[in-house]
């Protein structure tokens, strides 16, 4: 009897959580099928009175959101692969060697996470321009790699710490080079962490607004969040219907990727951030 009660209340609690977390998406889903007249009518029905697909039409054909989605996707993929590739040897070296570089990197991780991004935009832009990397999806990806690195390094070195040093020694005795040790011995053991890091980098790139706004000048190269901002207008007005439709379209890909990787992810995040 008591157990039954506990089980029921647990389920109710969970449902309350889900309602709180998912309701806004339902709300936007409903808006995305409403005509602008219905939105202005001020009666917030969850089920649209006269459902219309006009908003989706307008998002796909007038604003060509597919282009900016594909840009965001490219940038997300490049930066997630990039950050993983460079952080594997780096986190390995941060665990296996203890030098003043470690302290320097710790300091950098903290400062870079806290200092306002807006203030480093101009010098960053100058450097990227000298490298010919402004207005380029590669340039933007590199910036995202650098900006996700602090968190990814923090996580990854946790995984490396969990790998027994004996495994490496055995490989070295067998005549493997250090590169082989890292990529053949260490990397497979790091897979959950790699998945988590890659996902983190992907989501960060997918969501980021300010760098993309400033660095991308050409129309063909803008990313999704910048494209979405175009549905807003003077004095805080917005084209609510199309914006809602675009939001739904923009959220779905990351949710799908989430659900695929989420198992790796839950196990991945923690051992990096926590294990000492």
């Amino acid at each position, binding site marked *: 009897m008591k157990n039954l009660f506990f089980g029921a209340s647990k389920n109710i609690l969970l449902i309350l959580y889900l309602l709180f977390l998912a309701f806004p998406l339902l709300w936007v889903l409903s808006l995305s099928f409403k005509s602008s007249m219905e939105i*202005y*009518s001020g009666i917030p029905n969850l089920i649209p009175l006269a459902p219309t697909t006009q908003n989706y039409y307008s998002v796909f054909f*007038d604003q060509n959101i597919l282009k900016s989605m594909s840009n965001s996707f490219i940038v997300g993929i490049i930066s997630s692969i990039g950050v993983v590739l460079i952080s594997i040897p780096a986190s390995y070296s941060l665990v296996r060697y203890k030098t003043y570089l470690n302290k320097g990197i710790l300091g950098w991780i903290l400062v870079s996470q806290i200092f306002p991004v807006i203030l480093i*935009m101009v010098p960053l832009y100058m450097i990227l321009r*000298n490298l010919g990397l402004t207005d380029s999806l590669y340039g933007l990806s590199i910036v995202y790699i650098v900006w996700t690195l602090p968190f990814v390094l923090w996580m990854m070195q946790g995984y490396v710490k969990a790998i027994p040093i004996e495994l490496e020694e055995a490989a070295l005795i067998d005549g493997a080079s250090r590169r082989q040790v890292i990529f053949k011995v260490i990397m497979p053991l790091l897979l959950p962490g790699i998945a988590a890091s890659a996902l983190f980098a992907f989501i960060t790139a997918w969501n980021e607004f300010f760098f993309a706004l400033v660095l991308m000048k050409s129309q063909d190269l803008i990313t999704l969040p910048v494209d979405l901002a175009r549905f807003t207008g003077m004095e*805080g007005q917005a*084209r609510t219907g199309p914006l809602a439709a675009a939001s739904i379209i923009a959220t779905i890909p990351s949710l799908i990727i989430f659900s695929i990787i989420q198992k790796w992810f839950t196990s991945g995040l923690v051992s990096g951030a926590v294990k000492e």
Partner: protein
Amino acid sequence: MKSKKIFCFVKRLLIFLLSVFAYGCAENERGDKIVFVSLAWQEQSLATHKSIVAEWNELHADKPVEYVQSNWNSIHDYLITSFETGDVPDVFHYESSIIVDFALRGNLANMDTLLSDEFKRDIHESAWKSVKSADGSISGAPFLLESMVVIYNQNHFRERGIVPPTFEEPWDWNKLREIAKALTIDSNKDGWPERYGASIGLRSSANILLNLGIGYGSDFFENKNNERGVVIDSVDIQYLNMIKEIIFEDKSISPTSVTQSGPGTIPSFINGKNSMLIGIGTWARQQLVENAPQELEWGVLVPIKEKNQNQAANSQTLSIPAKSKNKKDAAKFIEFFLSKENMAKLAKSDWMSPTRISLLQSDQFQTPQYGWAICTYIVDKLIVGKWLTLPGYAEWKSRVANPLFQEYFSNRMSSKEFKLRMEEESKYVFSRYKR
């Protein structure tokens, strides 16, 4: 062997780093394109913009325009970083009160020398006022005037037997107040009317209160010893208290609307929960045309006349950055973009008054339909706000004026305290801009 390798590597690294950090040595070439950053966002207006650009590109294949669609929320950040890095567009769309600051910082080309006399002659004097700096230079080509109007619900007026005012006999504030009272309905007398006579979106209160104040004779700013500062006199307090009384004593302006932005008050107008929109931009008409049901008939009121019918000139503009390499062509494009025919299309699609005299006189902007005649009438009443070109105005507005007006209008401070804090804090903020 090993040390040599390291040495080589370090050397290469150094050279690489030096070339990267050399500030501003690489000049960005964006070719022969004219880059045009636009703020059009409504479907109709976007289509108009794109079709004019396409027309230009057909005629000028050697100097094509690249149309970049920006937006009102991020244009500021985009421009500031552009000016700082020198990677600027050739033409951009923004508004007069802000580009005046850019001009003071030397970011903009003086358009006076770039635009043809023919073009300049046809632009209304009121519009030029909004973009002229103290030294006479011009920061942008004004093309749409953002004037404020009162929009009213004709059905509600008819139902109460109210006849809107005429050009010859405009209302004063007292009359407006009376009408607002007459339009308010509180059938169960609980002090929470089901329908308010009016709403006034005071979220960005400084802008609208300063503007409405001009006609009332309330000016907030005073010149003392060649220095502009904020002085709250009895007229200012009288003016603010009058609006407060309509809200809290008459209860005929919706108190919720006071916390909203102008556009935020439109839905309740559409739903018939208030009968007038006070101090709303002329662009609001577009929302009504698109989103109001057929049964809702609305109109624009002849502006209120207390002392006069003046308001501050504020325009949307096209400007050319000082660092643009295509200034002449950019100016040519601006004149093409704002040709008589094109400007008419732009004004109609954005529902704001055009700036060309020849257009203002034409039938399409003199028709009473949708209140165009009244919008055009206001153009002659535009003057320069005392606060325009005042260094630090932007900070004053968001740090001092908006918060204090908001607190005052939510009945959280006395007029004495308001005067004291307004003058003190204004002095503090403006003092930061004196060197």
